[in-house]
């Protein structure tokens, strides 16, 4: 063998087990979701074609993927149709994250993700290597590791460990409507192939525990709606509990001298180090119930993020306000402002108008087919109430070089955006806003999400101009200080 080739390594052989597993899952889904036998036959055909075509390709992929790691660089050669040779110099590596999901933990493998400063995604991914190899790669690429376990907390650095009782409490506050929707979808699929009988089961449960069947139709409908809502709440609560418990199990964060180290998860174990300069802004989240008991969550908005975290990584998933502020301000200094300024009262008018238009239009459209849709108009006063609450919950403060923005009624957000981290400044005014002399002030940080980003909606035009100038002056003045 030639000299350099000897250094090259391949991925773990168990990569194939993963491919086979995925293929089986895909096959089972395709098989079970097609009710007609004709479609089943064609899905079988597709599966066969899939295996015939994809089998050799995955084999080629596996054989083509080679890498080697030295203390200077990571070199990857891969690609079947398009051959790629990628070199990542070690000094450009920002973070080496090791992730182990359920399957990987059974098989004893790990995924290594190498992130550099350049892009928002992991640049190098070695999806299947042995755990020992993963650790070797990380050590070679010079990223320090958590050298001790959370239990033997011997370090002098500031840290936070989510203990089991607190994890349980935190899970109690979680709802997951999204997971509920997934569950309903899966159950429907199962019913289609005759594995479950939701309708029958629901009927039985309702009759036995909730109410008696009567002839009165309105009574039945009302009870049914109440029962469905109750079931939805209970189920999404249970699912939210489980999800939160699994995700943040044994959460540990430590603020090292150069990097933030974190380790968490029950089924998928995540572990990684994050340089301080990658943290762009904070998002402190809560909801009315959590607020009542003084519970908050703080997330860091980072650059070069994993897509699964949507740019926001938990710094402390669940803690008292004082703990949040204490740890957060050690990551990036901030002091909490004493007073916030509300946006213009005219925002209520604009929001009311918007909701009224939206609801009336939908009701009018529905009315053509379904006369009962008129009852949808009862949503109007509710939406006006929501507009008013939105006004009450939306305020801002510019304090100590940080812009604080509070938003949302239920999933409350508090943004802490350091001015020196801003990338662009923007004032937007739609047609309606211009009529009311209002505007929206947006700021952009590196790697901020498209949907979730800091903005102040419906400020008075003059106030916005003043704040805009002030933010910009502080931003530019910052450079002179440096």
């Amino acid at each position, binding site marked *: 063998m030639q000299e350099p080739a000897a250094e090259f390594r391949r991925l773990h052989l168990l990569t194939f087990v993963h491919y086979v597993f995925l293929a089986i899952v895909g096959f089972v889904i395709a098989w079970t979701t097609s009710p007609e036998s004709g479609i089943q036959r064609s899905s079988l055909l597709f599966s066969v074609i899939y295996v015939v075509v994809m089998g050799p390709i995955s084999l080629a992929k596996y054989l083509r993927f080679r890498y080697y790691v030295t203390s200077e660089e990571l070199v990857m050669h891969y690609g079947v149709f398009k051959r790629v040779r990628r070199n990542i110099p070690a000094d450009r590596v920002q973070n080496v994250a090791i992730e182990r999901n359920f399957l990987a933990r059974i098989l004893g493998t790990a995924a290594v993700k190498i992130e550099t400063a350049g892009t928002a995604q992991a640049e190098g991914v070695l999806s299947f290597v042995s755990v020992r190899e993963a650790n070797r790669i990380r050590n070679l690429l010079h990223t320090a590791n958590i050298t001790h376990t959370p239990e033997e907390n011997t370090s002098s650095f500031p840290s936070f460990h989510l203990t089991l009782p607190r994890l349980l409490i935190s899970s109690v506050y979680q709802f997951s409507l999204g997971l509920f929707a997934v569950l309903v979808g899966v159950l429907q699929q199962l019913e289609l192939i005759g594995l479950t009988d939701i309708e029958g089961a629901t009927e039985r449960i309702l009759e036995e525990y909730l109410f008696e069947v009567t002839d009165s139709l309105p009574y039945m409908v009302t009870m049914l709606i109440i029962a469905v809502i109750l079931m939805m709440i209970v189920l999404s609560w249970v699912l939210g509990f489980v999800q939160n418990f699994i995700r943040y199990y044994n959460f540990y964060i430590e603020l090292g001298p150069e990097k933030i180290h974190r380790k968490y998860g029950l089924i998928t174990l995540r572990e990684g180090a994050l340089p301080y300069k990658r943290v762009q802004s904070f998002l402190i989240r809560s909801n009315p119930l959590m607020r009542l008991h003084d519970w908050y969550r703080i997330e860091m908005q980072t*650059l070069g993020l994993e897509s699964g975290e949507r740019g926001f990584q938990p710094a402390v998933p669940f803690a008292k306000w004082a703990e949040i502020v204490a740890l957060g301000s050690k990551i990036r200094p901030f002091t909490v402002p004493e007073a916030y300024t509300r946006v213009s009262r005219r925002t209520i008018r604009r929001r009311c108008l918007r909701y009224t238009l939206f609801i009336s239009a939908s009701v009018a459209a529905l009315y053509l087919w379904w006369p009962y849709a008129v009852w949808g108009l009862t949503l109007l006063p509710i939406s006006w109430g929501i507009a008013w609450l939105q006004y009450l919950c939306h305020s801002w403060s510019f304090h100590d070089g940080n812009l604080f923005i509070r938003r949302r009624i239920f999933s409350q957000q508090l943004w802490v955006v350091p001015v020196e981290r801003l990338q*662009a400044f*923007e004032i937007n005014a739609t047609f309606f806003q211009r009529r009311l002399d209002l505007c929206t002030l947006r700021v*952009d940080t590196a790697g901020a999400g498209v949907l979730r980003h800091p903005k102040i909606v419906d400020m008075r035009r003059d106030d916005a101009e003043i704040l805009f100038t002030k933010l910009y002056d502080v931003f530019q003045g910052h450079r002179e200080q440096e």
Partner: protein
Amino acid sequence: MKVLDPAVKSVWTIKSVLRWCILLPFSATADVALFFSDNSTFLPGLWTGLLIITCLVWTLIVPKLRYKYWRYELREEDLYAIRGIWNRVQTIVPLRRVQHLDVAQDLIEGNYDVARLVVHTAGTRSTDVVIPGLPYEEAVHLRDTVRDFVAEHMD
């Protein structure tokens, strides 16, 4: 503040017509289907007609208005732009936040000798601040000025 090159109105007009033409096959298919269906009360060519009228109205109004509201200025430390018909947007991009710069020109723009300056920052939402409809030399000049600023103020 500076205005764009008036030639950009022609560029936008052509692009607007082309963009509406994408819908043409769909409307034509719908019309043909309606023509051959039995109990149709619709006029023949209704959808295509509607499409053409919308396209004309849109193309006559929007490029002119967009041109009217576009203003930009390269200031000492930042790039300042105001634009938008319905949603008026006012953006400041500090020059020291500029990651890289493109001068872009497609076939239609090339025909009218205008170009776009695309300013990339590390931010996600308003990452690309695009100034369209600059005379080509002006775009290159702007790019070089910003580039020199960035090079000078590198830490």
